[in-house]
C-alpha cells in the first residue's frame, strides 16, 4: 500500500468504515510509516475535537410552527381514542376481507393486534423524543432506575448497565403500549436514543419469533425472556440494535 492510498483509507479506518482485511492493511502500513502514523493521530484528534463540539444549529421556533401548520393535520394531535378506534375500524375492514379471502382467521386477527402494538411502539418512541419527556427517572445508575419501577408496574424489568459496552443508560419512564402500562428503559448510542419497552409478555402479546424489522425507518428488535416481553426501537442501524439486544440479554442474565 502506498502512502497516497493510506492517507485516504486512514479516514475510513478512523470512521470505522473499513472491513477487517483493509483495516489490517492500513494498520500494517501505518506501523511501518511514521508520517502516515502521525497523520492518523492528528486526524483522530481533529475528529474528536469536531465531535465533542456542538456544531448543530437548532431550527427556529417560527420555522417549526410554519412547517407544522403546512402539514394537513390539526396541530393538536388527534385524541388517542379516536385515532385508535379509527385505525381499528380501518384494520378490521382489511382483516375482514382477508378472512373472507383466505379463511385463516387466527393469523389475521393476530397480525392486526401486532400492527397496533408496533404502531404504539413507534408513537411512544417519537413522543419520547419530541415532548421532552424522555425519562421520568433520570439516572445513569442502574440501582436508581430499577427500584424506581417498584410499585408502578407488576413486573421488575432488568436494568443492566451497558456503558462500557457502548450503550449508556439514561434513565427510565412509565409509558403505555396498547393501553397497558409498560416500563421504558432509555439508552443512548452516540447521539441516538434507544427506547426499550418491557412488560409482562401477556400484556404485549405478539406473534413470537419476529426478531428484527424496520418500521417507518426505525429498527425494531423484540424478544421474550422469563415471562417478559422486550421491544427495542431506535434510529440506529439494524445490526447495532441487534448488538444492543445481544449485550442486554447477556448482561440481564448475569445480573440475575
Amino acid at each position, binding site marked *: 500500500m502506498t502512502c497516497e492510498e493510506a492517507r485516504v483509507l486512514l479516514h475510513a479506518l478512523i470512521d470505522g468504515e473499513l472491513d477487517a482485511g483493509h483495516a489490517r492493511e492500513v494498520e500494517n502500513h501505518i506501523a511501518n510509516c511514521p508520517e502516515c502514523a502521525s497523520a492518523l493521530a492528528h486526524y483522530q484528534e481533529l475528529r474528536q475535537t469536531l465531535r465533542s463540539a456542538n*456544531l448543530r444549529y437548532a431550527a427556529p421556533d417560527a420555522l417549526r410552527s410554519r412547517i407544522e401548520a403546512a402539514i394537513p393535520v390539526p396541530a393538536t394531535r388527534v385524541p388517542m381514542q379516536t385515532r385508535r378506534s379509527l385505525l381499528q375500524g380501518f384494520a378490521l375492514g382489511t382483516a375482514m376481507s382477508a378472512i373472507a379471502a383466505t379463511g385463516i382467521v387466527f393469523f389475521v386477527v393476530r397480525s392486526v393486534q401486532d400492527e397496533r402494538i408496533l404502531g404504539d411502539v413507534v408513537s411512544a418512541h417519537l413522543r419520547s423524543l419530541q415532548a421532552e419527556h424522555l425519562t421520568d427517572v433520570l439516572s445513569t445508575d442502574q440501582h436508581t432506575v430499577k427500584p424506581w419501577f417498584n410499585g408502578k408496574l407488576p413486573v421488575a424489568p432488568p436494568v443492566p448497565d451497558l456503558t462500557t459496552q457502548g450503550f449508556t443508560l439514561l434513565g427510565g419512564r412509565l409509558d403505555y403500549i396498547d393501553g397497558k402500562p409498560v416500563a421504558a428503559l432509555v439508552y443512548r448510542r452516540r447521539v441516538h436514543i434507544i427506547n426499550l419497552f418491557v412488560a409482562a409478555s401477556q400484556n404485549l402479546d405478539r406473534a413470537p419469533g419476529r426478531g428484527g424489522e424496520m418500521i417507518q425507518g426505525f429498527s425494531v428488535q423484540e424478544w421474550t425472556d422469563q415471562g417478559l416481553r422486550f421491544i427495542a426501537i431506535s434510529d440506529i442501524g439494524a445490526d447495532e440494535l441487534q448488538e444492543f439486544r445481544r449485550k442486554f440479554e447477556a448482561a440481564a442474565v448475569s445480573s440475575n
Partner: protein
Amino acid sequence: MILAGRRRSDRMRDTRAMKGDVHDAERARRFRDAALPHLDEIYTLARYLLRNTADADDAVQECYLRALKHFDTFRGGAIRPWLFAIVRNVCRSNYARRGFSDEEPSEAALPLWVEAQETPEAQVLRQRDEESIRKMVSELPGQFREAIVLREVNDLSYQEIAEVVGTPVGTVMSRLARARAMLRAAWLAAEKEGGDDL
C-alpha cells in the same frame, strides 16, 4: 405556491371517497411522526450549505413540503438520508437560481495532508470555541462541506452520505479525507495568525 398546493389538494380531496380522507390523515400523521423529529438536523445541513439564516429557513420549509408531497415515494428504510437528499437538492437549486456558482476545486489538486511548519508540539491543535469551528467548516468548498457536516455533525455512515449526495462510497471517503486536510490546514493557519485571540 403553498396556497396553490392547498387548493389543488382540496380539489383532489373533494373527488375522493371517505377512505381517501382517512388515508390522507393517516399519511400526514405518519409523515409528521417520521420527519419532524429530524428538523434540527435538516436545518443544520441547510445552514451549513447556504451559510445564511433566512435562506436556510426557506430551504427547510420547501424541503418539508416536497417531502410530504412525495412521501408516497418513500419506501421505508432510514428516513434521514431521504430528507437530507431533498434538502440538499433544494439548497443546490436555490443557490443556482440566485446566480451563485459554488465553485468546486478539482479534487485531485487538493492535498491530503498539510505538514505543519512548526515543532511537533505546535502541531497539536489548540482547542477552539464552537463558533470558530463552525466558521471553519462553513468556509470549506461545497462538496467537502456537505460531506464533513453529514459525517461529523449528523453522524451518517459513508453509505448514507453516498445516497444523499449521489456518489459512490469511495468518493465520499476521498472527499472526507480532503475535507479534513483542509480543516486541519485552516486550523493551523488560524493558530499561526491569531494565536490565542481567536
